[in-house]
């Protein structure tokens, strides 16, 4: 069951996941487009109203990823005609820049500290928002399983403060050399 009221950190992870899924999965992108145009599949009568996340933080993060990693340039370019070596060269830049943004603006930590592949026990009342059960999901807690992904959690977010007049929708200024 999806949490009707995701936390700020959860929303960041949703925003990230949607962003990358929309880039790589046309079907997903189409569903997102439907959603954003209000063509949501049969909106069930929601007991709690869904909150609309403020676009400010998302725009700010995009602007940072563009400034440090040229991420928008990279994803908006048609890579069909380039060799893997050319793309790899640009990817280094994007990788270095994205890593810098994540390092400077987030404190990331794995959800589970154990090594991937090790056996873990989930006691009753474990946080289903932080841990996803897959495979043979039957029976009662405690659950025994193998950690296939440690997960990521943003322990801290440090986004720049903005002045009142700041226009967040400009992700990168056009540059005119005089």
């Amino acid at each position: 069951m999806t949490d009707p009221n995701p936390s700020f950190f959860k929303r960041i992870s949703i925003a990230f996941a949607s962003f990358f899924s929309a880039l790589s999965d046309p079907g997903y992108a189409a569903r997102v487009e439907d959603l954003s145009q209000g063509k949501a599949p049969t909106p069930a009568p929601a007991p709690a109203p869904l909150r609309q996340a403020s676009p400010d933080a998302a725009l700010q993060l995009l602007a940072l990823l563009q400034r440090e990693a040229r991420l928008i340039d990279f994803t908006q370019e048609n890579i069909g005609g380039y060799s893997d070596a050319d793309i790899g060269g640009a990817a280094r830049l994007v990788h270095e820049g994205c890593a810098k943004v994540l390092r400077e603006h987030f404190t990331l930590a794995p959800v589970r500290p154990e090594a991937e592949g090790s056996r873990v026990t989930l006691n009753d009342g474990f946080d289903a928002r932080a841990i996803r059960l897959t495979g043979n999901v039957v029976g009662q807690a405690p659950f025994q399983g193998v950690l296939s992904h440690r997960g990521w959690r943003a322990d801290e977010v440090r986004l720049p403060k903005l002045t009142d007049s700041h226009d967040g929708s400009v992700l990168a200024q056009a540059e005119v050399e005089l």
Partner: protein
Amino acid sequence: MSAIDTPRYAIGIDLGTTHCALAYVDIAGSDGETTRHGVLDIPQLTSPGSVESLPLLPSFLYLPHASELAAGELALPWGAEQDFAVGEFARSRGAQTPIRLVSSAKSWLCHPGVDRRAAILPSDAPPEVVRVSPLEASTRYLAYLRQAWDAAHPDAPFDAQDVTVTIPASFDPAARELTAEAARAAGYTSLTLLEEPQAALYHWIQASGGHWRKEVKPGEIILVIDVGGGTSDFSLIAVLEQGGNLELHRVAVGDHILLGGDNMDLTLAHVVARKLAADGQQLDAWQMRALTYACRSAKESLLSDAAQEAHAIVVPSRGSKLIGGSIRTELTQAEVRTTILEGFFPEVAAQARPATRTRGGLTQLGLPYAQDAGVTRHLAALLGRQAGATAELAGFAGKLDADASFLHPTAVLFNGGVFKSDILAGRTLGTLNSWLAAENAEPARMLEGADMDLAVARGAAYYGYVRRGQGVRIRGGTARAYYVAIESSMPAIPGVEPPVQALCIAPFGMEEGSAAELPAQEFGLVVGEPVHLRFFGSSVRRQDTLGTRLDSWQPEELQELEEIQATLPAEGRRPGNIVPVRLQAAATETGTLELTAVATEGGQRWKVEFDVRGSGQGA
């Protein structure tokens, strides 16, 4: 002192050539060698209208065009209205519009060839840009740090705290005075100046939490090597024992050398640019800056892992086509080693000395960068010059090897971003140890626990704390003796400059807060007219006492500093009259040198100023 007068924090400010930092010690929350301390994250613009808090404030000032930014985009959290930007945004925006960027203000502040109070920066700005003076730029950085502190500590205002600002050990009296002047102009009410290498050692002492006493013993000589973004600075500190307690005594400092990490990055970028040019790829100025930036991270990576063969470098295109327009190349381990290790840290002999060229007649009024890039050669010159620095210290008499051709350090403390690379620290230490081995001395060891970026600010805050009576202090006083020139009375010979004598007015090692006696020598000051005197400093003539007159000296013994000047106000005197005065020198508590003219009759006193108007402009 009442509780109201007692500051709650000791604040340390590193006013660096490329970065500033502010650290503090909570005086009340600290006890003995256990301190409560921290570093202030400084809110600063990182792009128009966007403010981030970062531990370092880049020492850059950007003077934007009136149409360049939308209204309110330079706003700061404390609501200050200003038409300039300081910090990260100034640095990044200025890289693209250098004609509006003031950088290296600190190097200009101690450049004897220019008028430091004149609006000359940016030096290549077109006429419509309103320029600022090196003094004004430094004032703005210091004022900015004060505002940042006040915004974060409304309950402990900056003016009520104990403030220490650091300066290079090699700063001459005029540059020290200008730094103090900038701080006063920035509204600093209490101020002490501290030499950066000493601050680095104070940080090491603080970080050891009392264990430093076990790590050094009496008779040792600690060499502090501080290579920052723009300058290289050395100091030698001796360990003494006095009544069962260890004492630290700063015995010598190096010359002012404009040579740092930024020069290294730029040199590497030119190596790579030449390689690209050989393949027919020309870089424009924008790409060159991007390349310099890429070379810095490639250098850091290659110099921290000797096994890495090469590091890929991508110069991004300026347009939005990232993949199509980028230039790919690489920096190899061999290139970094030849350029950085052999170029800046060559394995030279102890007798090596930096090369000096006579400057051409048409010297451009740019910064006087070091002519020899070899940091190790500058180090060899310092140690050679200071071979006898500890001869008169208690406890060192028997330990000195009479045959030693240079002063033998026993321990080395590295500081500055350049030494984040173990390879560079290792090369420097290795070179020093090869000199020591050649004279059958024990190898020097490296003192651990340095914090290359923030040690100076942290150490300065700790100094403000120990000055209040908690913990060890480094002694030593002034690191130079000072002299004024007296023209000898011999008949004038046409075409021959009359020979001068140097009169010692301030002996070596004057402690802060002490004044020299009045010398016997009198000077005649003409009422109403400025009188200029040539002024000299010596970092080696420890034996000269007040009033010593030198008829001749070796060129490396005495260095000519900027002239000093005194003007007697005309009130109550007839202009043109000559009043006999004597010159008195005092080392102030702040850390500056103060010269006073005292009338022989009547004892009236006038301040003698350092002439900072720049000899290069025909002052």
